[in-house]
Structure formats: structure tokens, C-alpha cells
């Protein structure tokens, strides 16, 4: 394929749709970003970082940020461990069991969030668990688990089973195979699952709002309560900060290559086959 050849242009209607999509997606964010950088001084608008400074110096908000980071980190760590372990366990089970379990574990992807929140709340009530960050963490683990499972599983199925045979033949037991072959090869998927869980947790409002204790708001919950008193430039600044944080994590996610395996299931396999063919030509 020559790179010099220009690709045919998309139909005009399609490119128009593309621009409309971009505007729909990003214009509100742009408005928010601009809104957080402007100050109304005696009727004239001026650029300022004032609102960002106010956010950073607001202890309430910083506490909420700490809560969010703490919940995000702990819950995604737990769901990464649990999700990876279950994916590996599922991979080893017999086929019938596998499909059933895989189907069941996808529940949080399709379940209405509000129902999920209510069921968790009543479950905590049954267990007589005091609502607080611990229940938020449990809740976040339970909904992000499916995503980790999905990410890790999509990578697992592309692994060549003869690698395990090779290791076994060279003297490795099951535990050694897991430690030296499977887990290292799953690393990008595990990292991807972790980051995805973190983003989901950091973002989550609805479920957190239900299962949260008093005085331990996460950032989205704090934002919601503050918003009831009207949208201010300060809230815009807070939202912008949250957006930038999520965005930078996402960029890291993209660049680490972990993102690919989520959406291109089996692509790594295709790539290695292609490589094999080109190697044969050498």
C-alpha cells in the first residue's frame, strides 16, 4: 500500500454529520472550560485562574477529592484482583459453566443503574453495614468487576494455549505457569481493567449517592449538592478539573495500548499471525 495515494473523500453528508457529532460532544465541555476561565469585572469579561484557585483552596472540595481518589484507588485495586482471578478461573473451567458464568458476570453492564443502587442499599441494610466509604467501596467494586473481567477475559482468549504446554513441559507447575507466563502476558489487560475501574469509580454519582454515609461525599456527590445552589464559575472550574483528570488518565490508557484490547478482541492474534507470515518470507 502506498501512503502517497490519497484516500477518496467521504460523502459531504457524512462529514457534516461528523462535525455535528463533534459539536454535540465537545461544545458543552468547551463552554464549561471557557466559563471556568472568565471573570465578570465591572461588566467586562476577563481571563482568570481565580476560580481554579478557589477550588484548590476549598477544604471541603479537597476532602471530597481525597475521598474520591481513595475510593477509586481501593475499589479498583480490589476489583482488579478479584476480576483477574475470576477471569483466570473462568478460563480454566469447562465450556458450559464458562458461558453461564461469563453471562452472569456481565450483569452490571446491562442492569439499570438505579436498580443496582437500590439492591446494594437493601443488601447493606440486611448486613447491617454502616453506610460510609466502606459501602461505597464495596458498591464500586461490584459494578467495576464486570469491566475488569471483560478486559482480562478478552485478552486471555487470545493467548496461545501451547505456551502453557511449553511451560509445563519445561517443568513448571500450575502456579508457576500463572506467575511467569499468564499474568505477565495479561499485564496490559490488567492495567487497562484497573484504569477503567478507576475512571468508573471516580465518575460515579448515582450509586455513590445511594450508599454513601453522611459527611463523606465523593467529588461527584459534592458537585451535585453544590449545583443545587446554582451553577457558578467555581463549579465550572471544579468540573473542568475533573474533566482534565479523567482525560489525562484516558490518554495514558490509550498510549499504554491497554485500550486496544478492550475494543479489538482477538486483534493481537491476527497481528501475530501476520508477523509469522512475514517472518516466513525472510
Amino acid at each position, binding site marked *: 500500500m502506498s501512503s502517497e495515494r490519497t484516500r477518496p473523500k467521504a460523502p459531504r453528508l457524512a462529514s457534516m454529520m461528523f462535525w455535528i457529532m463533534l459539536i454535540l460532544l465537545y461544545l458543552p465541555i468547551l463552554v464549561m472550560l471557557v466559563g471556568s476561565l472568565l471573570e465578570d469585572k465591572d461588566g467586562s469579561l476577563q481571563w482568570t485562574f481565580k476560580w481554579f484557585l478557589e477550588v484548590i483552596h476549598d477544604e471541603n472540595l479537597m476532602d471530597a477529592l481525597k475521598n474520591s481518589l481513595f475510593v477509586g484507588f481501593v475499589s479498583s485495586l480490589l476489583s482488579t484482583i478479584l476480576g483477574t482471578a475470576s477471569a483466570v478461573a473462568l478460563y480454566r473451567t469447562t465450556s458450559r459453566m464458562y458461558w453461564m458464568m461469563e453471562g452472569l458476570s456481565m450483569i452490571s453492564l446491562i442492569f439499570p443503574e438505579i436498580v443496582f443502587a437500590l439492591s446494594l442499599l437493601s443488601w447493606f441494610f440486611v448486613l447491617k453495614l454502616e453506610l460510609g466509604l466502606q459501602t461505597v467501596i464495596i458498591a464500586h467494586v461490584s459494578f467495576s468487576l464486570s469491566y475488569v473481567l471483560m478486559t482480562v477475559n478478552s485478552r486471555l482468549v487470545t493467548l*496461545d494455549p501451547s505456551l502453557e504446554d511449553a*511451560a509445563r*513441559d519445561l517443568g513448571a507447575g500450575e502456579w508457576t505457569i500463572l506467575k511467569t507466563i499468564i499474568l505477565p502476558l495479561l499485564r496490559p489487560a490488567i492495567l487497562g481493567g484497573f484504569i477503567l475501574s478507576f475512571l468508573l469509580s471516580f465518575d460515579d454519582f448515582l450509586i455513590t449517592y445511594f450508599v454513601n454515609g453522611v459527611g463523606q461525599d465523593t467529588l461527584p456527590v459534592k458537585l451535585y449538592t453544590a449545583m443545587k445552589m446554582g451553577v457558578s464559575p467555581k463549579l465550572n472550574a471544579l468540573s473542568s478539573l475533573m474533566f482534565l483528570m479523567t482525560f489525562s488518565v484516558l490518554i495514558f490508557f490509550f498510549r499504554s495500548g491497554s485500550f486496544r484490547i478492550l475494543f479489538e478482541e482477538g486483534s493481537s492474534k491476527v497481528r501475530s499471525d501476520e508477523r509469522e507470515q512475514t517472518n516466513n518470507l525472510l
Partner: protein
Amino acid sequence: MLEILNIGKSFSRQTALKSVNLSIAEGEFFSLLGPSGCGKTTLMRIIAGLESATEGRILLNGERIEHLQAAERPFNMVFQKYSLFPHMTVGQNIAYGLNLKKLSKDEIEGRVAEILSLFEMSDFRQRMPETLSGGQAQRVAIARALVNRPKVLLLDEPLSALDQKLREHMQKELRTLQQKLGLTFIYVTHDQEEALIMSDRIGIMNKGELVQVSSPREIYENPETIFASQFLGATSLLQGELVEISQDLATVRLSDGSLVRGKFNIPSDQIRLGMSLDTYVRKAMVFNRLESQVFGIRDK
């Protein structure tokens, strides 16, 4: 040295191996040859310990080993798709088995360096598998197995992913290596030519059965079954009419009028002149009609 006694394997609905008996001598290059799905790979995996047989015994120097795990058997295997660990360098791949044996650092270092130089791959030690060509990857895969000094090296179609030219080169290299080290090789392949060139003895497999075990020359010149002779690609199937019979030789007139004479395998009480026969003619000998081999199956 290695004895396989009545090894059988059946899955829930089908039989993969039907009581295979085989004895392999020390230092022998033994090939298992057969079409895909004939059970040759299954047999090899059972020998390696990667799969268990449903019945039968395996003896190594007189001791039963069929209950041992793959890790405990003094065999190593070279896989069809090389199966190098993609996240380890060439050196780490080769040292994998040695590390698990908990050998000393110096010992491991020495053996890895030695095997790399044997394969003229010393410069590739720090390379990742994905940067290797097919031939290089295959050398590393063989080195990774050999470095453990196995009593038997099992090779599962190790050259099938290589192009023709490289394959021929590697065939010679493997055979030389095997003779140099005096090692026992069990080699699975579906490539008749490969088996005929490389092996001391060949076992032909069909539908889970070992149909013939002989030297390459014997198997080529005297295939015991129609399957073996056809699979070796040395025969053509022609229709003909039986015109003469004397002792163990039959003469058949082919449809173009030419006569071929050769051995036949029809019970004598069913044979009569003028009957229509399936005639398998050896390609290599087709010009020397008197030596053609004729097998017969009665036509309806």
C-alpha cells in the same frame, strides 16, 4: 529404551488412539507420519505427559512413567508454532527450564551460552521472540528444549511453518544435530518426504492406529497397506482387468492396453481371471512395468 504398550485414548464419543505398541531405541530418529487427525500428535502429547492415555503403559528403560507429570519426565518438546514466551528474551526463554530446576547461576549461564553457540545464535540472546525470523525462532525453540538435556526430544511438526527452502535446510541441520548429540528424537510430521529423508524408522499412523513401522527404504518400497502406499504419494490408482496370475504375481491390463505386473492382496479363493481391479502403480517404477506393485480390491 522407550516402550509404548497398548496405549489407547478415547474421548467421550470417539477413539483417538487404538492400542498403539511401539518401541524406540536409544539414539534413534523416529518419525510418526500420518495425515492430520490420525492421532500422531495425541500420541506425542501422551508421551510428553501433556495428555493422559485412557489405557496402556509407557516404559522408559524398563520403568513405568505414564503416571508422571510432564514436568517430571526427562523429555522435552518442540512445538509446532515454536511457542516461545513472547514476554521473555531469547536468553530468558532458554533459561526457563533451567531456572525451574534451581540450578546455580553459573551453571545456567554456562549452559545457555553453550547451547546458543551450538545454534550460532549467541548474538540473539537479548532479542525478543517477535523480532526473530521463523527459522531463528525455531532454533531458539529447539535450543530451549535441548538445554534441559532431555533423554528424548519430541518434535511436533516443528518445520511446518517454514517455507520450503528453509525447511530443507533445517531438516539437514536437525538430522546432523541429532547424530552429533546421539539423542533420541521422536518427530511428528505429515510430510512424507521429510520423514523419508530424516528418519531411522518411520511409524505410519491412520485413524488412531499405527499401521506400519519400518525403515524409510522398507516403507517406501514395501508399504504393507494401500493406505501407506497411497499416503507416501508413490502410487497412482488405475483401473484394470486381471489377465494372468502366477504364484504371488498378478498381471493386469490397464485401460490403455498396457500391462503391469506385481504383488496383490486379494484372497486367492476370490480371485478369477477377467475381474476388474483397482491397481496401485508405483510412480517411481512406472517405467519398469515388471516391478510395478499391484494391489487389488474387487470392483462392484
